[in-house]
C-alpha cells in the first residue's frame, strides 16, 4: 500500500513550492509531483504596456536571481527591434552578470541549500583544533577555518542554542542520517555560512556599483546601460575590481574547498550515483569576452549525446499546460502563448499526516507551465552551461576539466 507525503512549504527557495511523493512499503519513492502554488499573472499585466518598461516589470519575477529577468526582458525587446548595443554596454552588462553570479552561488550554496547538508547541532561537538587540521586538506590557505576562528564560531552558536530558542534553526532535521559530515566538517562549513553573510554583501555591492542597487538594479535600458559615469570613473572600476578580489578569495579559499569536501562525503549517495534523470541540456551565450565572443556557448544536447550538440532553434521551444492551471489547446510557442487561469484546486486524500488536500496528479496541479524543447524537458543552469561549452570543445574548459581528479565527477 503506497503512502503519500506532502511537503509544503519547501523553504529556502524563492517562491511557493509544494512537493508530494508516493512511497511504497519500503519507503522508496515511486511517484513525485512538484507544484508552484502562487500565480501573479505577470504575462497578463505586461500586455499593452510600453516595451521600454518590460525589463523593469519582469525583473520582479524574482528578487533572488534579480537582474537576470531584467536583462532578458530588455534584450528581448532589443532583439525584436534589431537594436545593436555598444560593446562597452555589453561589457558592463557582463560585469553585472558576473556580480550576480558570484552573489547568487554563494547565497544558494551556504544560506539556502546549505542547511540540507550541514548539521548545525553536530558542529557544537566538534574539536576546533582537529577541524582546523581537516580544513587544510582541501586548501592550503583556508579562510575563517583556523582553530581560533572555529572556536569563536562554536562558542557563539553554543550560546545561541543554550537559549533554547533556535529561531530559523528550530524544529529541523538535525541528527538525521542523511547528514554525512563529521562534526569537524560541519563546524568548518558553519563558519563559512557566517563568513559568507559578510562576503555576499560585498558581492551585492559589486552589482550596485553599475546597477544602482541590489536587489533589483535599475541601470539597463533598451539600447544599453545608463551607468556611464560609473563606467568612466577609474575609481569606480577599481572599487568593483577590489570587491571582486575579496569575493574571489572567498570562493577559492572556502567555497571551492567545501565543495571538494562535500563531494568526498556525499559521493556515494544514491542520489549522486544515480546520475541525472533528464539527459537533455540547454544553454545560451553568456559572459562577453570580446565582440561576438562569449565564455559560455549556446547549444542543445539531447539524450546525453555530447558529440551531437546542436545550436538552439528557438522555434522548437513550447510551453505545455496539460498539468498546469491554465486553459490552452496544446503546447504553445511563447509568441502565440496565452495565460488564461483555470484553477481546479486540490483533491482530498489520506496522507501520512491524515486527510489533507493533495495535488491532482492526473489533472492540473501547478501554476508553472512546462517548457519543452522539441517536446522534451530540458535541464538548464550551471551543469548545462558547462556541458554545452565542453561539448563545443571550448579550450579553457577542456583544460580545466582535465586538471580535476576524475573521481569527483564519477
Amino acid at each position, binding site marked *: 500500500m503506497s503512502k503519500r507525503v506532502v511537503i509544503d512549504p519547501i523553504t529556502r527557495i524563492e517562491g511557493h513550492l509544494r512537493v508530494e511523493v508516493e512511497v511504497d512499503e519500503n519507503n522508496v519513492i515511486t511517484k513525485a509531483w512538484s507544484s508552484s502554488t502562487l500565480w501573479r499573472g505577470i504575462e497578463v499585466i505586461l500586455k499593452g504596456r510600453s516595451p521600454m518598461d518590460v525589463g523593469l516589470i519582469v525583473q520582479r519575477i524574482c*528578487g533572488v536571481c534579480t537582474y537576470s529577468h531584467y536583462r532578458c526582458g530588455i534584450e528581448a525587446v532589443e532583439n525584436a527591434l534589431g537594436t545593436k548595443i555598444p560593446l562597452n554596454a555589453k561589457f558592463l552588462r557582463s560585469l553585472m552578470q558576473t556580480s550576480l553570479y558570484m552573489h547568487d552561488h554563494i547565497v544558494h550554496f551556504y544560506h539556502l541549500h546549505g542547511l540540507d547538508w550541514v548539521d548545525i547541532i553536530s558542529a557544537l561537538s566538534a574539536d576546533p583544533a582537529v577541524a582546523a587540521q581537516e580544513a587544510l586538506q582541501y586548501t592550503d590557505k583556508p579562510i575563517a577555518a583556523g582553530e581560533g576562528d572555529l572556536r569563536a564560531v562554536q562558542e557563539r552558536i553554543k550560546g545561541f542554542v543554550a537559549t533554547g530558542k533556535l529561531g530559523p534553526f528550530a*524544529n529541523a532535521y538535525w541528527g538525521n542520517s542523511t547528514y554525512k559530515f563529521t562534526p569537524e566538517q560541519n563546524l568548518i562549513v558553519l563558519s563559512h555560512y557566517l563568513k559568507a553573510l559578510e562576503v555576499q554583501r560585498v558581492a551585492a555591492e559589486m552589482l550596485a556599483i553599475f546597477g544602482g*542597487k*541590489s536587489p533589483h538594479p535599475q541601470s539597463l535600458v533598451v539600447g544599453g546601460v545608463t551607468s556611464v559615469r560609473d563606467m568612466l570613473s577609474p575609481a569606480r572600476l577599481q572599487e568593483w575590481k577590489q570587491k571582486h578580489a575579496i569575493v574571489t578569495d572567498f570562493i577559492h579559499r572556502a567555497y571551492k574547498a567545501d565543495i571538494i569536501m562535500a563531494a568526498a562525503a556525499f559521493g556515494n549517495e544514491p542520489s549522486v550515483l544515480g546520475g541525472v534523470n533528464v539527459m537533455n541540456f540547454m544553454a545560451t551565450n553568456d559572459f562577453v569576452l570580446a565582440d561576438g565572443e562569449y565564455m559560455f556557448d549556446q547549444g542543445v544536447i539531447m539524450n546525453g549525446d555530447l558529440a551531437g550538440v546542436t545550436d538552439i532553434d528557438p522555434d522548437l521551444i513550447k510551453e505545455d499546460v496539460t498539468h498546469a492551471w491554465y486553459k490552452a489547446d496544446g503546447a504553445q510557442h511563447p509568441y502565440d502563448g496565452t495565460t488564461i487561469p483555470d484553477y481546479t484546486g486540490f483533491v482530498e486524500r489520506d496522507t501520512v499526516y491524515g486527510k489533507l488536500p493533495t495535488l491532482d496528479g492526473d489533472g492540473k496541479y501547478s501554476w508553472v507551465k512546462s517548457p519543452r524543447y522539441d517536446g522534451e524537458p530540458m535541464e538548464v543552469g550551471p551543469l548545462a552551461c558547462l556541458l554545452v561549452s565542453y561539448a563545443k570543445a571550448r579550450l579553457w574548459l577542456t583544460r580545466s576539466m582535465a586538471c580535476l581528479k576524475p573521481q569527483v565527477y564519477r
Partner: protein
Amino acid sequence: MDTHAALYRQGQARLDMLRQLNSRDGQSLTSKMKQHDISRRDFIKWSASVTAMLALPLPFSTLVAQAAELADRVPLIWLHMAECTGCSESLIRTDTPNLDSLIFDHISLEYHETLMAASGWQAEENLEHAMEAYKGQYLLAVEGAVPTANNGAYLTIGCKGHTGLEIIKHAAEGAAAIISVGTCAAFGGVQAASPNPTGAKGVHEVVDKTVINLGGCPPSEKNIVGTLMYFIMFGKLPALDMFNRPKWAYGARVHDNCERRGRFDAGEFVEEFGDQGAKDGYCLYKLGCKGPYTYNNCPTERFNHHTSWPVLAGHGCMGCSEPNFWDDMADFEKPLGRQLLHGFDATADTVGAVILGATAVGIGAHAVTSIFAKPLED
C-alpha cells in the same frame, strides 16, 4: 521639544518594561560585543547613526543603544505572500557588518521561509507555535501582496492548503504590530498592476488593524531595520505619513535631496541616454525620473552600504515607494507632466498636486531664466 521629551519618557518607560522580561540567554550585550570584537565606542557610534537616520535628536542615541540590548525579546514572524523575495534579499544585505548580525541574533526570528531550516509540516508547526506562544507580542512582517480574487485561490501555503488570505488574517489577529515590507505588501505592487488578474491587495486592505507600510521595490535594508528598531524602542508605531509610511524614512521627496537637483534648477537635462549630459550627470527628469513625486530616503542613504542608487547610476527614479506606481508612474522613461497622481485633482491643495505644480513651475522658471540670462549679461 516638549513632544520630544514626552517621546523620550515614553521610550524610557517602554525599555523599563522590556527590561523586566526574562533575558533570553542571561548574557549581556556587553559580553556579546566583546565576543564579536566590537568596542563600546563602535556601538555608541552605531547608535548615534541609527538615531540620526530615524531623525531623532542625539540624546535618543542612549535609547537606541538600550533597545539594541533588549531586542532579543521581540519575536518576529515574517510571512511571504505574492512576492519575489527581493525584500528578504534586501534584509540579508544589512550593511553594518558584525553589529547588524548581532542585532538579528537578538530578534527571535520565529518564521521566515527563505532562511529557516525546517520545511513542510515542521515549518507549519513553527508558525503555529510562534503565533500561540507569543500571542499579542510578536511583530508580524509581511512580504508580498495578498491575492483575494477567486477566494484567494491564487496562493496557497502549507500542507493544509490554506490560502494566503486566510493565513494573513489569522496571523494579524495575534500580532503586536504589523509591518508591510515593500510595495507589494504595502500597496499590492506589481501583481496589483492593471488589470490585477489575482485581485492582489496590500495587507492593510485585508486586515482591520493599523499596518506600517514600507514602500520600495525593495525598501532599503536601513528602512526595514530602522522601523523594527523604532517599534522595539517605543512599543508603538512611528509617526506615519498619509500612506502609513514612517516619516523618518519617507518624509522627504527624492527630488529635494537629489544630488542632481542643482542640474534641475539650472535647467540642465539629459535629453537621451548616452548623450553628453548623461556623462556630465545632468538631471534625468526629461527621461522620466519620478523623483519629484516620490517620497523616500534613497538619495541620502542610498543602497548596499551607501554604494549607489538609481539616479547615481544614470537612471531616473521609477517611484517604487508610491502606491500604484506601476500604473501611475508609467511610462518609466517619460516625464509624468501634468497627469493626476493618486487620484487627486491637480488643482486641489494636496501633496500630489503641490508636487506637480512645483515641478511645472520649476521647469518654467528655468526656461525663463535661460531666456533672460543672455540679454542681462549683454
